């Protein structure tokens, strides 16, 4: 297959191809779709055990300077004042937030996770191929803010270690693992990838300084690990070897896509994009006040609040079997009488779930019926002109077929992303009696 010669390659590209990965172009990068174990096994590994992803194609931007906080407050969709201490003290570092950068119409330039490293020091992680555009956008928003931007893409290697066994694996390869991991709550992080940084206080056993973040894009418990590019290959091998006893396998973009869709997480450019960032399943990415009537700050794109009565609605759906429609056709949403309600944004199959009666169970649901076998369900997002009630059944239609799906609030049950760290270090296997906290 000719993937073209102009696609970028991560430092692990040779590892992927020599281990039999099926490669494909993705937003300017040549990345693994799946390895010989197959995308279904990779998807299940992250839910039942652990999987690791090379995500070095993501763009990493350093934002430093006295105007950084005010810049983010003026153009990021999260109110970072919420990081301030209750006693009014300065914001606490080591926190991360998911949000988006919008243009003045309230359309999405890209979604992002902002990491608060230290006073006036932030890391902004955006999607593959988006670093330049987001840097330009931030520079255009400069105003009187004083800051420096540095696109670190290509200099930083990133590994996502995801799944209920990921803390136990990481503990094997970290120096002082308990000090590093035990107090770490969801969307917090420690350390730095540059060993010369005063923030670098977490190290791997191969000597690499690492930024360990309790974040990810699968809906499952796990970490994103940032290291210098030069240490990526060695770190990948170190973790893979440590994870062998826990069933760790490398995973590709196909599993990443099906895991995130089942976890109701958006893909930028597909589920969020050049339309108003409102009326979607991610209200936590906007700075709503307590009663949801307004925003707690002014920011570029906050006009979306005024559009919420007229803008379209993005909603999640789950099908009744794994059959999909192709969103590239494009696929449309049809009501009971055949009326055109909108379009399909994402349609993939989550192979870890299935229906019994009116309920969706996962392979790890503690209360799954005896003999339950997950046959997989199509799932994803639709964008419709009027909000559809939960439970409504609609048809998705592409050039080939129609499939029936249900509008839902959530898709894959019993996800592990929010489980307390203490449970995930001490116990083996998937917890059988805890729900997301």
């Amino acid at each position: 297959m000719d993937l073209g010669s102009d696609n970028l390659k991560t430092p692990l590209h040779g590892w992927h191809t020599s281990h039999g990965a099926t490669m494909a172009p993705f937003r300017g990068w040549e990345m693994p779709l799946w390895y010989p174990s197959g995308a279904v096994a990779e998807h299940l590994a992250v839910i039942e055990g652990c999987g690791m992803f090379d995500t070095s194609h993501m763009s990493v931007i350093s934002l430093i300077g006295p105007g950084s906080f005010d810049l983010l407050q003026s153009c990021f969709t999260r109110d970072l004042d919420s990081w301030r201490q209750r006693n009014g003290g300065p914001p606490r570092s080591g926190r991360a937030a998911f949000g988006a950068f919008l243009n003045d119409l309230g359309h999405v330039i890209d979604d992002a996770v902002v990491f608060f490293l230290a006073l006036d020091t932030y890391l902004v992680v955006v999607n593959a191929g988006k670093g330049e555009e987001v840097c330009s956008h931030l520079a255009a928003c400069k105003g009187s803010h004083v800051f420096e931007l540095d696109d670190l893409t290509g200099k930083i290697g990133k590994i996502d270690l995801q799944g209920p066994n990921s803390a136990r694996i990481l503990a094997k390869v970290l120096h002082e693992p308990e000090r590093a991991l035990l107090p770490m709550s969801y969307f917090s992080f420690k350390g730095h990838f540059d060993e010369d940084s005063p923030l670098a206080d977490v190290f791997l056993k191969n000597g690499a300084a690492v930024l360990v973040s309790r974040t990810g894009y699968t809906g499952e418990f796990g970490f994103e690990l940032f290291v210098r590019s030069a240490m990526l290959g060695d770190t990948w091998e170190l973790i893979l070897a440590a994870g062998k006893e826990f069933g760790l396998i490398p995973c590709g973009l196909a599993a990443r896509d099906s895991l995130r869709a089942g976890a109701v997480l958006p893909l930028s450019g597909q589920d969020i994009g050049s339309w108003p960032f409102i009326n979607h399943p991610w209200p936590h990415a906007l700075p709503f006040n307590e009663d949801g009537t307004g925003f707690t700050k002014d920011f570029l794109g906050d006009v979306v609040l005024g559009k919420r009565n007229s803008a379209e609605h993005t909603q999640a759906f789950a099908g009744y079997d794994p059959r999909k429609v192709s969103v590239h056709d494009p696929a449309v949403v049809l009501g009971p009488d055949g009326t055109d309600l909108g379009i399909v944004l994402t349609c993939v199959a989550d192979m870890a779930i299935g229906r019994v009666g009116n309920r969706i169970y996962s392979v790890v649901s503690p209360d799954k019926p005896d003999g339950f076998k997950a046959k997989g369900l199509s799932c994803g997002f639709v964008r419709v002109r009027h909000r559809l009630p939960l439970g409504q059944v609609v048809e998705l239609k592409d050039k080939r077929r129609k499939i029936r799906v249900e509008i839902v609030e959530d898709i894959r049950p019993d996800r592990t992303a929010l489980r307390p760290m203490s449970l995930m270090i001490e116990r083996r296997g998937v917890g059988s009696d805890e729900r997301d906290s």
Partner: protein
Amino acid sequence: MKEIHELHFPETVRYAHDHEWARQENDIVVVGISDYAQDQLGDITFVELPQEGDFFEKGEEFGTLESVKAVSEVFMPVAGEIVAINGELGESPRLVNEDPYGAGWLIKVRPTNATDLENLMSANEYEDMLRGLE
């Protein structure tokens, strides 16, 4: 993805341009997809097959294979009547990946034209065609 030399193309079946294979068993032709096709598609997650008794022309679409990547049509390598479908694939669609020439067969056909099978490619001819696709 495997290199072509890593794939298996038994000489006991004949091959179509669309990557189906066909094998004579008495007066019936068994049909499936090649090792190359299953490797390209990735994990098969759902198989849609016709009804027994349906008739199809050679080259006509008789079903679809749903993989994690896409939905792919499968086409009749020979014309004829469907006399059996592989019911195991409902529970275990991955058999198509694991054993494409054996337990992963798709349909059995009573052919209407004996020469259809002869006109398909030998293993060597099919492998040459695949090398031309590289």
